[in-house]
């Protein structure tokens, strides 16, 4: 798997663009519908009767456990969603036309902005019950993982090697058998990689969604995120540090006990002709495989699952669905009807959204928000450029020295996973203490957590840089700026791209929490669409939230299309090693 292909969503080039507008409309309409159904009835939000957060240290392990369980629940939901959604999209041409653009836009929607809607929805489902708030938090984490995972799975399903597919058809495997014998195993490496990447973002969301205020309702769920929120309110530095340490331990455990074993295990699913040089190892997996009583405990389960994978459900595939044959007249008419129905539904949805926003807001408001989004866009661009200018040279320097890279790499990965929003309050206290300009200094928080993606990807790129090219550069005395421009930068670019696009997506989301931060009873605000959405959320002003998120989504989508995709095409064409 080459580096570029590992980003699930960027690799697809030809995408019908007019679908995006429709998909955006449909998604926004769904959210508006939720508000109409639950909030529009003018019933005040039922508050969940959760106990107050206890700031003593000994309650931290319990809070950490709750946070971890939330992550697990979200991960499970994401897997189920991925298997169903991606499979439908890959197997049905008509569903694919609808599902994939929706997924594409969903990826660009800063889901943190919609936390208020999901909270409303789930609290409405379980009135007066903590379960509603739990679901909302889990859903927030889910949204940060599911799209990426579904894309990865969908892409794997579409790129199953032809010969392996022919074997399964030749032996007349049924649809069920083929899915578990061929398609799912083939998708495993990409899926695991994307899951791990999304997981890093997940910590950010779980922390953000544990303590949230929507209108008059404040929801706190027992967890590390709400612990920090309480600590921020009281300005307790010691509690903040304790929570940060706890979080670090939790992330380390997740990595060592969950992901390392899974990656080591997933090595066998890689389709490659030779045994790869580096084999991922995991002490946890070794223990699991070698301990006698543990083996006896899980082997029966493995056996049951393996025979389940061979159940003869469904019919064997006959001829491959052939694109070569011109679709029949009936098929074409059905296609036309289907497309017309989808377009009509989406247009209606778009109209509903515009109407909903239009009841309270005018074009002037929309223009204001566009202006604010431009400010945030500027912030994202400047900070990404700044982070790149600092970290690319540094990471290249580290990456070309294997012994240092070996030690820095896990640290960078850890920092990328660490939910830096835990530290926002503390950072803002410094802004307050030195009376700094929030428009400038709060901006730094946007790339606070996301810059590490650039760091560890570029380090990986520099480590993998071919030695002969380096030697050639040394031999021909290529130095200084020329060395950077012609030798090393093109070489690490595909890796930088992977890191930068992840960081860019994360930065947009981060802006919603980073432009509007509280410390004790102070609130520090930077101008931008992020603070606009955050403020609207706090007031429970739904039309403004929809407007803010919609315009931000449009910007993010355009930014991805016009900038990242072009860059991807360039890298693909020119910089493949």
């Amino acid at each position, binding site marked *: 798997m080459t580096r570029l292909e590992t980003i699930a969503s960027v690799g697809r080039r030809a995408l019908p663009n007019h679908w995006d507008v429709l998909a955006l409309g449909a998604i926004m309409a769904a959210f508006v519908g939720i508000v109409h159904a639950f909030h529009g009835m003018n019933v005040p939000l039922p508050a969940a009767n959760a106990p107050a957060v206890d700031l003593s240290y000994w309650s931290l392990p319990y809070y950490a456990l709750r946070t971890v369980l939330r992550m697990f629940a979200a991960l499970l939901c994401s897997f189920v969603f991925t298997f169903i959604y991606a499979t439908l999209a890959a197997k049905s041409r008509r569903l694919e036309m609808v599902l994939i653009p929706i997924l594409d836009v969903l990826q660009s929607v800063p889901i943190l902005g919609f936390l208020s809607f999901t909270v409303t929805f789930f609290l409405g489902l379980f009135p007066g019950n903590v379960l509603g708030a739990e679901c909302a938090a889990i859903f927030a984490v889910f949204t940060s993982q599911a799209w990426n995972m579904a894309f990865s799975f969908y892409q794997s399903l579409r790129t199953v090697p032809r010969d392996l597919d*022919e074997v399964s058809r030749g032996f007349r*495997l*049924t649809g069920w058998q083929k899915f578990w014998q061929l398609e799912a195993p083939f998708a495993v490496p990409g899926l695991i990689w994307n899951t791990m990447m999304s997981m890093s973002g997940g910590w950010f969301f779980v922390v953000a969604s544990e303590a949230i205020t929507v209108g008059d309702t404040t929801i706190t769920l027992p967890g590390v995120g709400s612990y920090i929120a309480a600590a921020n309110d009281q300005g307790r530095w010691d509690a903040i540090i304790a929570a940060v340490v706890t979080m670090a331990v939790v992330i380390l455990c997740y990595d060592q006990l969950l992901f390392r074993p899974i990656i080591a295990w997933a090595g066998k699913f890689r389709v490659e002709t*030779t045994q790869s040089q580096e084999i991922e190892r995991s002490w946890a997996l070794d223990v699991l495989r070698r301990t006698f009583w543990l083996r006896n405990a899980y082997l029966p389960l493995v056996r049951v699952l393996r025979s389940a994978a061979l159940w003869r459900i469904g019919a064997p*595939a006959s*001829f491959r669905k052939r694109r*070569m044959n011109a679709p029949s007249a009936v098929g074409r008419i059905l296609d036309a009807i289907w497309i017309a129905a989808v377009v009509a539904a989406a247009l209606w949805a778009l109209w509903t959204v515009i109407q909903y926003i239009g009841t309270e807001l005018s074009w002037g408001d929309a223009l204001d928000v566009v202006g604010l989004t431009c400010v945030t866009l500027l912030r994202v661009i400047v900070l990404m450029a700044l982070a790149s200018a600092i970290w690319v040279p540094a990471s290249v320097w580290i990456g070309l020295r294997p012994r240092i890279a070996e030690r820095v790499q896990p640290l960078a990965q850890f920092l990328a996973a660490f939910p830096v929003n835990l530290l926002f309050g503390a950072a803002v206290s410094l802004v307050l203490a030195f009376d700094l300009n929030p428009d400038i200094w709060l901006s730094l928080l946007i790339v606070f957590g996301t810059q590490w993606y650039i760091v560890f990807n570029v380090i990986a790129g520099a480590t993998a840089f071919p030695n002969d090219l380096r030697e050639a550069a040394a031999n021909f005395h290529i130095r200084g700026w020329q060395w950077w421009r012609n030798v090393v930068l093109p070489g690490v670019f595909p890796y930088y791209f992977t890191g930068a696009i992840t960081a860019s997506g994360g930065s947009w989301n981060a802006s919603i929490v980073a432009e509007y931060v509280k410390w004790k009873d102070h609130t520090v605000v930077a101008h931008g669409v992020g603070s606009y959405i955050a403020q609207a959320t706090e007031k429970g002003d739904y039309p403004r939230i929809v407007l803010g998120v919609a315009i931000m989504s449009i910007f993010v989508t355009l930014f991805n299309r016009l900038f990242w995709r072009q860059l991807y095409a360039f890298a693909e064409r020119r910089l493949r090693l």
Partner: protein
Amino acid sequence: MLDVSTTTATLLEVSHVSQTYLKGSGEVGQPVLDDVSLTLREGEIVGLLGRSGCGKSTLLRIIAGLAQPTSGSVKFQGQEVAGPVEGVAMVFQSFALYPWLTVLDNVEIGLRAQGENPEETRKRALAAIDLIGLDGFESAYPKELSGGMRQRVGFARALVVHPKILLMDEPFSALDVLTAETLRTDLLDLWSEGRMPIKSILMVTHNIEEAVLMCDRILVLASNPGRVAAEIKVPLVHPRNRLDPEFRQLVDQIYARMTQRPEAKPIGGRESALPGTGLAMALPRVSTNSLAGLIEEIAAPPYNGRADLPHLADSLNMEIDDLFPLAETLQLLRFAELEEGDIKLTPAGKRFADAEVDQRKKMVGDHLLAYVPLAARIRRVLDERPTHRAPATRFREELEDYMSEEYAERTLRSVINLGRYGELFAYDENAQAFSLENPQ
């Protein structure tokens, strides 16, 4: 275990099969296979011999029920084939083993998928593994094995379902020479001793000697579009000896047959409607260095301007897919002539062999303009236009009127490569455009 009715019972009948793909633009493209018929009887090994791109693998997939022909029919034991059938198993060039399954699991999968009970499956799988010489490797994963061992797994997996017909898609071409030879002999031994539960083998190959070594009957396929050009019987008994004069003679005969051009003598005009001339001339993708190298090789002793193709292929260690494209390009450019399985340099070819680099480039340029209509056409368009630029797409589309998309692309690439070498024009890959100016 043979239920012998008649020894020459027909197992498989392919009649008038054609295959056409739609072009990217949605129009119907040129056929890949054109009216192919063949029969496969019990007890024989039949080879489909052809160069890359002649549609032989497509034909094999149609027979396996993995692809549907545009027209024509395939009958297996009198039944129309409408999808993958029981009784036909395939061995792949790329082995196509599931990397996440062990050798044993890979072999068992065909039976398990059909719901065969686990004990019976295990018994038959172990028997197949034993037969094919894989004992001891049952719990290994494919990536731990060498290519030869992997292909043995491929054979065991196909044999374990007890197929009547074994289809083989260039099963030895991804292996090194020694491994391939071992596998061939092992397979032939099992076949002649009747130890395999199969009745007939149909194999695709581009290796002439392999075909003569293994097959009872060889169908030579011609390219663009793929069709059966000749049927050659191999009357030799197993085990065959590659050095046997009769063997050599058959190989020579097939070489001659495969290099024979039906349109060797073009009739008059440049834009003739005959396939293979005018814009319809399909060019293979070759490197200019290899072209020059081949001319030098033929010009030098011991060949002194005339070489026997099988001999040349052997001494240069080249497959026909490497050698034929070069030989044909030399023929198209009039640097050499092909006759009776020999390649002979023309006077121009001999001059080329002695020339300096700049002269060589000039010669290639001149010959391209004179003998390759597409190159002449591109040059003329560039000369006529005031901007001296032309997009590649217009020529590609013109080519697609005469040949499949794949061939059109290959031909265009080839002309770009030769034209750059001959300094006829420049080509900008990013803009996909021809021009006359070279970068300063």
